[in-house]
């Protein structure tokens, strides 16, 4: 690397570290809830697409995920990125083989220091995702998802009680995933999705998209 390339490399590294966060709508979830007594941990590598300047940009966005079975038909868990955390539950509402339908409400807090047309690093998200699984066979499962997230996005000065420059967003989204069970405790999932943020005062914003792979490992606790 030449000295001339160093600043660019540092900038790219900084963007990789700082830009992802609420930009990603990737949840990499299926509708099947985690069994009681089982904890699943996973690692995801998503590619996110977003508006940068007046062009589209793409970045990798690593995430850690976990789910813990809490009841016969529900679990809880979350995902952790470099600058954000989202927690939520997942409730299985319908189980009629080969179909499973669940709803997963979640809440998250994200810090997005580099923004684009607006400057709002503090992001609080609250919403839910509906998930529909179709089990093709014991190893392959298709998942369709539809989500609606509400976001409060504001500058850091919100901590000083100054809300000038804050925005409320509603973001409908959709995703499509496919999961492959490598063995009874290991699942590989690929997912792609799109979110269409709508500023409640200023109208539509540029859509964001994601495409990712997630490897999830489940472990039943000993009793």
């Amino acid at each position, binding site marked *: 690397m030449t000295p001339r390339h160093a*600043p*660019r490399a540092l900038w790219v590294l900084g963007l990789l570290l700082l830009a992802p966060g609420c930009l990603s709508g990737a949840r990499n979830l299926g509708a099947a809830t985690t069994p009681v007594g089982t904890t699943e941990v996973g690692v995801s590598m998503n590619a996110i697409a977003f508006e940068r300047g007046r*062009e589209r940009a793409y970045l990798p966005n690593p995430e850690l995920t976990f789910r813990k079975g809490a009841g016969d038909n529900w679990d809880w868990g979350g995902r952790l990125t470099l600058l954000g955390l989202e927690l939520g539950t997942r409730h299985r509402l319908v189980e009629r083989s080969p179909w499973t339908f669940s709803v997963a409400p979640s809440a998250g807090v994200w810090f997005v*220091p580099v*923004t684009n047309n607006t*400057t709002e690093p503090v992001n609080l998200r609250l919403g839910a995702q509906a998930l529909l699984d179709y089990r093709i066979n014991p190893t392959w499962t298709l998942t369709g998802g539809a989500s609606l997230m509400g976001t409060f996005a504001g*500058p*850091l000065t919100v*901590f000083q009680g100054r809300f000038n420059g804050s925005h409320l967003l509603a973001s409908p989204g959709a995703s499509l995933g496919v999961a492959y069970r490598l063995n009874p405790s290991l699942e590989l999932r690929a997912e792609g999705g799109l979110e269409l943020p709508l500023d409640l005062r200023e109208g539509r914003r540029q859509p964001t998209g994601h495409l990712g792979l997630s490897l999830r490992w489940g472990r039943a606790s000993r009793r």
Partner: protein
Amino acid sequence: MPGVEPAARTGAHRKHLPRKGPLVALPCTLLLLTLLTGCPLAENYADEGGPRYSGDHRAPGATSATVPSSLTVVTFNLAFAENVTEAITALTRPPLADADVIVMQEMDAPAVERIASELGLTYVYYPASVQVDGGDFGNAVLSRWPITADWKLGLPHDDPYRKQHRIAVGATVDVGGTPVQVVSVHNATPIVGLGGRLDQAETIINAVDGREPLQVIAGDFNTSDPGSLDQTVKLFSERGYQWSSEGVGDTVDSVIGGLPLDSVFTRGLTPVERGVDRRPAGSDHHPVWVRFAWPQ
């Protein structure tokens, strides 16, 4: 039972110690919030017309009756106007000496007045905000030719941390009877996203659209992040401007290396020579200069 008391106390003490998690987490959270929001809010000059400073230190009748063979424009961000003496030294040696127009950023009124006085220039200066140290922070246009009109333009997208407002300062410079619209630009740093900074550049372009056919928009565009210079150049090109400082290279030395922050865009002028004076000039920015052929 004094004999057993110490052991019992130790065990009991250990057993009843409060959990440390919340005790640690709360101060850490408060410290984090303090660090994140600790910067005081900027004091901005919200007045659309001021405050305004101007002065004319040109020798009587020096240039107004002549027609130049070329026009030299310099843009220079003088880093909080701290090292004025070094800046004057730089501006009085070739290739910056005898520049026709100098646009400056991060200036305060005394610094602009002193530079104009020592170089024999006329000037207009508008501060955008007040620095933490109490000094003003704004843009100036200095000229060897008469300034016949000037204006201050507020830019959109204040920075999210200090709410610091940015401005552009425009001046109509009468070069031998031909008006040239000159704008001194200081866009936000990359803490405002690239889209926001492009909005700032577009606001300036819209403001000068339809004015004099000869236009110079120059200054610190804060194009340090990858792709930002390309998109800024593309925006100006789409609006009919030429990137007259193209190829001059990095204009700032920083801890992460050289960065191409300063540019000169023009309409109706043909650049014939350009460069960056990388000798010490009292700033982390280097002065960028472009010499234009004067349209006959």
